[in-house]
């Protein structure tokens, strides 16, 4: 239990750093692009394509972290006033469906990546291949599926032992 908790917090820290990088890149790139355009009258070629890739990476590297923290927005109107045990009972299907939805995303992104590879789909200016990006998005979604799975199991355990409610 403690090794697992340690393993995950270490992993979450690493993911945190990884998710910060693409955003830092976007800030630096937009700033330099404007600077280059006004000072040298030459924008950075393909800056928007790098930003496209960075956006996708920022979102998908942070997806497991959001899932782990239970950070996806819920309407939870009818679950806020009920007992912990009931809450846990509702949480099991909620976590399970989240996992299923994430699994479909991971699976279909993998299929999509294969098609990008087959069609040589690439960006126009820098000729960046879409396939590796889609594979990366798929892999981080798959990591989120694992996280959702762990949360489902924890919710099930909470149903069995009403004192322990995961948050």
């Amino acid at each position, binding site marked *: 239990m403690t090794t697992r908790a340690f393993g995950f917090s270490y992993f979450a820290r690493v993911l945190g750093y990884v998710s910060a990088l693409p955003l830092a890149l976007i800030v630096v790139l937009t700033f330099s692009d404007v600077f280059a*355009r006004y000072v040298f*009258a030459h924008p950075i*070629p*393909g800056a928007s394509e790098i930003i496209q890739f960075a956006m996708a990476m920022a979102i998908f590297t942070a997806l497991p972290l959001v899932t782990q923290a239970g950070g996806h927005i819920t309407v939870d109107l009818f679950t806020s006033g009920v007992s912990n045990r009931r809450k846990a009972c509702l949480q099991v299907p909620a976590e399970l469906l989240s996992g299923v939805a994430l699994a479909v995303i991971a699976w279909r992104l993998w299929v999509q990546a294969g098609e990008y590879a087959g*069609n*040589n*789909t690439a960006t*126009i*200016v820098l000729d960046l291949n879409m396939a590796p990006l889609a594979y990366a998005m798929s892999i981080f979604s798959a990591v989120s599926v694992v996280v959702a799975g762990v949360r489902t199991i924890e919710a099930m355990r909470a149903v069995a032992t009403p004192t322990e409610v995961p948050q």
Partner: protein
Amino acid sequence: ETKLLFNMFMAPQDPFNTLVLKPWAEDVIKATDGRVKIDFAPASMASPQAQMDAVEKGVFDGAYMYHGFLQGRVKLSQIAHLPFINVNAKGSSIALWRTYEKYFADANEYKDVQLLSLFTFPGGPIYGMSDPVKSTADLDGIKIYSVAGNVADMLTATGAGVVVAPAARSYEIISGGTVDAFAGYPLYSATAFHTAQYAKAVTDIPGQMSAPSFALFVNKKRWQAISEADRKIVMDLSGEAFAARLEAIDQLEAKLRKDVADQGIPFIEADESLMTAFRTYGKKLRGDWITTAAELDVDGEAALKFYEQEAKANAQ
């Protein structure tokens, strides 16, 4: 009865949709006595880049797609984007279809869908937003918006600072004055994207720098669901017949050019310095395309000559 759901990635009220695509669909319904019915989705269900994938997978049954987004898959039809070979939309559309039938069909580049037609829009001039762009000197050190592709490459070769973005996002860049000029699409598109109002001078390039070209296609399975007799009826209305419908866009373009001229916006032609710069780079683009064609066992030299001839002959 077969119902085909068509997607339009350009706005529903875009003149191409209202003047070309929808009248064609009505004619198809009429000619097949309603056995082939064409519906249009009220809002686009896929990005411009994903139209062919979406048709292939049956997200919707039919669509059109810009060849600029198909560079990895469809190499031969990129011929329409080469400089100095286009006159107007009707001529180029017919030329592209005939060249496809005569030279490209065997390469089978649209194998994942059923191709219905090919067409191009009128070529785009250079729109100066304060000063006219007439020579290479005028382009030196200025910022110019362009759609991605040959136009952007040719402008970059002259030394201009080129800002590249999809046409649908050009308004944001042009309206604010982020750039000093823009290029890459006809006046008809500039009007549709609300950027025409920022043009203070229009520079025509004889033979055009490029002309945006598109493919119209349907899902293969859905196509097979139509009886053979009806498929023939649909095909008779598509292909070259569809290409000829682009005349409506030429007429619109001519009217818009007249309106703009009436507002006192000057229409000028590029001078020799600019044309020389474009020709030098254009030669390279043509050479590259011919090499690509050769890899696909197509006599590019002959195809290019044929296209040019047909584009001129059918421009009227």
